[in-house]
């Protein structure tokens, strides 16, 4: 799967499609935008109006001429903090709603396509993190940018009432500071970031290797050598990242420089207007202090541009998931009418619909009670064969007849962060407490059914996790007539593995059994062994 960043039209399209799907979506968006604008207006207004107030005061008018301006100044002074607080709340609520929608969409899409046995790499893990990009995108990029554009336009118009020249200068430098510089900085620092990718990748690989194989490395006196390599890679990474920091520094300097130009320009243009009598002297301070206050609005834009780049690449991956055609059935569909006993494959071709055929002409007969070991090198398509037998993807050729109740036990069944009982009910959502207890007993599992496990609960040993997976299979209303075991002992130590197999075979001795394995001990417990490589369509290293 290629890594393509979302284009700007795609990002905007995605945002615009999500907003109307939430209750009062556009109202939320508009009020968040309004709060952001009011926040900026308050800080600019505070300085601009104060400048006018002081200048007017210096003309020594009666105090009542200043009262309105004083109220305005106080309003902006209070408003800035209040509006900012509201903006953050409304904006975040909107962003989290969008994130929820995106999560639901991604989940629905992924649930709809068969995932088991696919080489997905870290796709699932990435999607989880990638959807969060929408929050940053809205809160840190879209809202600040949209409100800044409104404020730039508004301020320029307002300033034009005093001095069209100064207003034009402000408009030009604001666009330079607010749009051009962040855009250029993002492009340059992105280029630097890209140069840092290999170094970052190498660092990740090295750290992974050192962490996972620490004992083997020190046992072979390779530790110091690896540390020296790490220092070298770290140096490279530091040099690459320094270029990014350099660019961000230049961007920040550029923004301040343009602010300075606007202030100096305001003095020149405004000063000339005052001297020639075109503008009252009291307005000069406004032309100077407003651009100064505007600077605060752009200061974070270079960072926002970087956030945009990150969000675009994350959302690009999310869009890829959302737009990918569904493959297979997703959920396994049980053919309740199937009356077959045992498993019969005749001339079956196996392969993912979006990739080539990997096995062809597979003939396999497994009688009830018979255990057939399936062997073959990694990558040959053993799990894909299992997925095909379960009907989750269609065979590319030939016929499969399988019983309705199939149990599948893999090496890495997921344990959900919930109770033991709920984990087991994955296998049969209507199972009674008694059924669950019976399945646990037959799976040799002596845990409290109400105990919470998984991510936030107690950790399980590899053996216990596999027994939960087995209990899921056994909790079905009908005992499986076909069992497919996919490397069930891969991560277990010998004793646990043998104990598990004993219980498993005892519980399902009537079922036809297909056993995918590398394990010599497990092979020795099969009635016969079938080597898949005879049907392989491509050579596997």
């Amino acid at each position, binding site marked *: 799967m290629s890594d393509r960043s979302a284009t700007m039209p795609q990002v905007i399209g995605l945002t615009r499609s999500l907003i109307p799907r939430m209750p009062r979506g556009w109202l939320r968006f508009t009020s968040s935008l309004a709060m952001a604008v009011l926040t900026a207006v308050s800080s600019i207004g505070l300085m601009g109006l104060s400048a006018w107030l002081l200048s007017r005061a210096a003309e020594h008018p009666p105090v009542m001429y200043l009262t309105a301006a004083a109220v305005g100044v106080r309003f902006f002074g209070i408003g800035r903090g209040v509006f900012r607080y509201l903006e953050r709340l409304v904006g975040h609520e909107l962003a989290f709603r969008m994130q929820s929608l995106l999560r639901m969409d991604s989940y629905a899409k992924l*649930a709809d396509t068969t995932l088991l046995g696919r080489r997905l790499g870290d796709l699932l893990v990435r999607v*989880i993190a990638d959807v969060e990009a929408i929050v940053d995108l809205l809160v840190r990029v879209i809202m600040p940018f949209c409100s800044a554009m409104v404020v730039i336009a508004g301020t320029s118009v307002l300033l034009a009432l005093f001095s069209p020249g100064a207003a034009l200068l402000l408009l030009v430098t604001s666009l330079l500071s607010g749009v051009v510089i962040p855009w250029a900085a993002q492009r340059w620092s992105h280029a630097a970031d890209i140069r840092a990718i290999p170094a970052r990748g190498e660092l990740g690989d090295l750290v992974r290797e050192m962490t996972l194989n620490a004992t083997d490395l020190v046992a072979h006196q390779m530790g110091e050598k690896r540390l020296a390599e790490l220092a070298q890679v770290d140096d490279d990474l530091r040099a690459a990242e320094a270029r990014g920091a350099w660019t961000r520094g230049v961007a920040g300097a550029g923004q301040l420089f343009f602010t*300075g130009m606007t202030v100096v320009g305001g003095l020149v243009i405004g000063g000339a207007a005052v001297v020639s009598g075109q503008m009252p002297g009291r307005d000069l301070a406004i032309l100077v202090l407003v651009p100064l206050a505007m600077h605060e609005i752009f200061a974070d834009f270079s960072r926002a541009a970087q956030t945009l780049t990150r969000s675009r690449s994350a959302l690009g991956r999310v869009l890829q998931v959302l737009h990918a055609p569904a493959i297979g059935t997703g959920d396994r569909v049980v053919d309740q009418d199937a009356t077959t006993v045992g498993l019969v494959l005749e001339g079956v071709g196996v392969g993912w619909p979006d990739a080539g055929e990997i096995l062809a002409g597979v003939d396999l007969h497994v009688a009830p009670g018979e255990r057939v070991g399936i062997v073959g090198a990694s990558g040959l398509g053993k799990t894909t064969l299992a997925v095909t037998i379960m009907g989750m993807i269609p065979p590319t050729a030939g016929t499969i007849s399988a019983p309705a109740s199939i149990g599948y036990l893999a090496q890495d069944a997921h344990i959900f962060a919930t109770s033991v009982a709920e984990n087991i009910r994955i296998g049969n959502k209507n199972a009674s407490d008694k059924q669950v207890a019976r399945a646990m007993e037959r799976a040799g599992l002596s845990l409290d059914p109400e105990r919470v496990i998984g991510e936030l609960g107690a950790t399980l040993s590899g053996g216990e996790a596999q027994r939960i997976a087995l209990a899921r299979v056994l909790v079905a209303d009908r005992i499986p007539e076909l069992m497919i075991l996919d490397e069930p002992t891969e991560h277990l130590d010998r004793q646990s593995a043998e104990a598990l197999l004993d219980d498993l075979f005892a519980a399902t001795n009537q079922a036809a059994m297909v056993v995918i394995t590398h394990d010599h001990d497990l092979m020795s417990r099969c009635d016969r062994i079938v080597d898949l490589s005879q049907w392989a369509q491509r050579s596997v290293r």
Partner: protein
Amino acid sequence: MAAPLDRRLLHRATAAKIFLVAVGATGILNGVAVVAQAWLIAHLVAGVFDTGGFHAAPLPGFTAGLWCLATVFVVRAVLVWATSRWAHRASAAVKSQLRIELMRARLKRPSDATTTSSQLIHLVTQGLDALDGYFAKFLPQMMIAIFVPAGIWVIITITDWVSGIIVAITIPLVIVFMVLIGLATRSEVDKRLAAQTKLANHFADLVTGLPTLQVFGRAKAQSKGLEVTEQAARTSTMKTLAMAFASGGVLEFIATLSVALIAVNVGFRTVDGAFDLATALFVLMLAPEAYLPIRQVGAHFHDSADGTAAAQMALDIIDAAERPIGVIDAAGLGAITVVFENVGVHHEGAARPSLSGLNLELSPGRTVVLVGASGAGKSTALSVLMGFTTPTTGRVTVCGVDLADLDPESWRSRIAWVSQDPGMVRGTISSNVRMGNPGADDDAVRSALDRCGAESLALDRPIADDGEGLSAGERRRVAMARALLRVEAGGVDLLVLDEPTAGLDQTTETRVVELVRSMGVLVVAVTHRDALLSIADEIVEVGSGVRS
């Protein structure tokens, strides 16, 4: 949440100290430049306002004043650029230091299980990046926030003592409120965050479990539940944020309100003629600058929290690995005899010891097999022997010398080791086998593999660091070949075999052990396989057989 100024972390910052000071200094210089900028603008505006011409007293002239102002902006621009560079150098230096120290700590305690591999990998590759916020922003800003507001307050007070009083009252107020609200909401926020993590993880849990759900035809049905938890998570998150934003909100509120009060106050006194415009504008422009550094500390505080948490974790790992390392060279010890005297290991925080009261004597040329129930401490015993784990009770002596006094590198170079789940380094089959003897030629590697039952593994077959593409049995055979090469290269007196995971045929293994023993090497193995047990000179029962 970690304390914002962590003593241990600051202590580590030696490499970064000079850059940190430089960033702080540029911030303070910038403060000076801001004062100059405000003074220049005030007098340029007031000069034109007062005279209706291009005058800017006490400046020599309007144009000269403009040039000065432009210069101040250029100086400030350069300072911004310098700050960005040096701030990056500061955090990069600390990150590099911590990365290396973390990995060194891992290698010192290679079998440490208190930090999972994924936690450590994440910490070293990404977690430490959060320190950018701490070193590049928060720490320098702390320095700036101490000096700049004080300096600006002095100048404001000299210019106008009334405004000085407003600033003097409100700045402490800002800090007090910020801290009070922060403290008041913190425990509640932390509590909520913990609850939220649970809800937020539901999506992650479902997505990673999708293949499992699909097998049982239950994936689509989970959408409804997901929608419910999403809603609950959002509601609770918003409540938390409303509190979390409050502390920052109060800060902003008091700061801008104070500026407004000063503006109005100065304005009304200007009407009375107490000030000229230049002074009034000067005070107005300085007032927000007195609050700005403090506001930024508040803004960067959040960035720093992630960083200090990451650093805390890193320093805990590094400190836990601090221990004296033996210096006696094991190469000079002669034939190896090992004695375990009442050796026990009790990991901190564990309910039960991993190993207790093991007595064992290993003498040259013998084959000793350790047996015992799962969890009895067989692997822990081997880990102690390898020097990966330090015994908490008893001691291990090698030829009469305490194992702790031996240089671990020199000790391990006399051992060939095959672990329970052998690690693979990135490279090829042959580079992995060659870890046993880097000087071995291809023929030697091939022959070692063949004798370990790995005839089908091609030498140039690539391997990823997690051994992906190799089954557990294949990894085990590569590791056996590795050990065989090492023994054959000479200098090795001890072969340590930990119980294999599922998937290896035992005849090959037994053949290799016999081969090694015939070379006069002491073999220690954990196993319950009959074939290996049958050739053992001695079988030692480890532990009381309590099953975990």
